[in-house]
């Protein structure tokens, strides 16, 4: 028996660790460093119908224990992702979670319909939480009625289970979580980045060209944990947790809070080997805590 294995809608994960969307491209760069088949899954970079060139630079800025980014969903577009990126990833024994983004509801539906048919795409992640594009993205993720409607529309055309990626930039995250569950979501991924700013103190100018950016990294872990913990109480669909995960203790905390699996984002930039390292450390950590399997840990904080 594989004690790290996790079964989720559409996903048989050999372990609960996966790189988060936007922090791993389409895998090619990290494949030069280690075998991608080690990963539980890969959340690929957001894909839109058309090619997107993203925002002006500077696109990133360091902050205390974190970073701001405003890349702006740069990606080669659906056709090229289907023709080049996904077939290339087929050489690895790893399920792909395709992050789907767009400006209009039709864009999401269009991307979801096609990309869900790629043989290695085992689930979709609906990006209704990108804070760095003027239209689409977060505008779908802050209104429960719109979020539910979009989830339902995508669910209808997708041939694989759908996970909806929630934004922390809302007053009541439970409301959005319940709405996407009602819309037919098979799971939830959370959290996306927190909107933030950094200024050049001398000039008073924002450092990021887009003015605002999404905050990620260890700084946001407490916020992410609180939200996962809350949402786990309000929905019955599984959660893939993320937000500042960089150590094995972070992984345990997210599982305890109610996440069934954990995604790693910014930490990949700090230590490109962080995902395989965490996977390697997990069995020992289970032993130390006295758990036989990862599944036993999921949501344990709610049972105390």
């Amino acid at each position: 028996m594989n004690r790290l294995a996790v079964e989720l809608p559409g996903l048989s994960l050999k372990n609960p660790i996966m790189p988060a969307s936007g922090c791993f491209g389409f895998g090619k760069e990290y494949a030069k460093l280690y075998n991608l088949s080690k990963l539980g899954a890969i959340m690929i970079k957001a894909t839109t119908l058309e090619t997107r060139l993203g925002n002006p630079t500077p696109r990133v800025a360091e902050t205390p224990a974190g970073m701001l980014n405003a890349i702006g969903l740069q990606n080669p577009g659906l056709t090229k992702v289907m023709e080049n990126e996904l077939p290339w990833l087929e050489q690895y024994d790893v399920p792909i979670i395709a992050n789907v983004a767009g400006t209009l509801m039709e864009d999401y539906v269009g991307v979801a319909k096609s990309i869900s048919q790629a043989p290695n795409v085992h689930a979709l992640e609906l990006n209704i939480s990108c804070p760095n594009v003027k239209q689409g993205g977060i505008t779908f993720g802050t209104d429960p009625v719109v979020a539910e409607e979009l989830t339902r529309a995508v669910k209808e055309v997708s041939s694989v289970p759908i996970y909806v990626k929630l934004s922390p930039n809302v007053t009541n995250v439970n409301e959005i979580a319940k709405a996407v569950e009602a819309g037919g979501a098979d799971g939830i991924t959370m959290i996306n980045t927190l909107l933030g700013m950094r200024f050049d103190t001398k000039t008073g100018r924002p450092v990021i060209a887009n003015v605002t950016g999404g905050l990620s990294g260890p700084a946001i872990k407490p916020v992410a944990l609180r939200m996962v913990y809350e949402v786990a109480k309000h929905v019955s669909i599984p959660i893939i947790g993320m937000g500042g995960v960089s150590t094995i203790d972070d992984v345990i905390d997210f599982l305890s809070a109610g996440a069934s699996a954990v995604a790693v984002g910014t930490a990949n930039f700090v230590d490109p080997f962080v995902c395989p390292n965490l996977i390697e450390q997990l069995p020992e950590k289970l032993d130390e805590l006295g758990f036989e399997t990862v599944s036993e840990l999921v949501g344990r904080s709610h049972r105390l």
Partner: protein
Amino acid sequence: MIRQEQMQVVNQQQIATNIFELTLIGQQVLDMKQPGQFVHLRVSDQMEPLLRRPISISSIDKETLEFKMIYRADGRGTTLLSEKKPGDQVDVLGPLGNGFPIDKIEAGQTALLVGGGIGVPPLYELSKRLVEKGVKPVHVLGFQSKDVVFYEREFRQLGETYIVTVDGSHGHKGFVTNVLETLKDDFAVYYSCGPTPMLSALERMYPEKEGYLSFEERMGCGIGACFACVCETTKKTEADYVKVCSDGPVFESGVVRV
């Protein structure tokens, strides 16, 4: 091959005001192929500062397994780096990026090397390689003022060298372009690293010449995955954009829209 390695500090010395030369030793040096490549360093194992710092390689010694970097300590990260002492470990990811091509020029020809400020260091390894190949380098190096000039003697040992300072406190007064206007343009290839306005001025000055320019942009991952350091391109390339970290940092002149 890209490696992540704990490398040991062999030497650290201040060579001008706030300018440091750091020597590290490790296996990674064997993989350092081209002048103009860079390494991505963690300056601390704490969560702050969190991200790695990209720093260009200024000289490589495969026999001793040592390489040098020259950097300006002007932020929190580089200031922490400047506090490393011989024997300390530094987490180094590298070598990264594509450097200056030396196969574009032949023995007996002249190369023009133009550096600005903290863009000067990678030109040192480049010049050494060109000299080894029998190429004659001409260096034009610009700095703000006398107190931040470094490696003047080292460059002079390799070839003709012009130092320029903005305030005229050392060498010629003004910008590198003021000196370049007085030089013959009988060089075969030009190579440059420095602030973007300088690179752009060179492109305008030598539209017919073959040139290679090293760019700088804020980076996240350093390996091409995060799309932080993307630059717009011109019609010279089919690519819609290039990433400074993994497609560059050195590009042929005219490729990046400046």
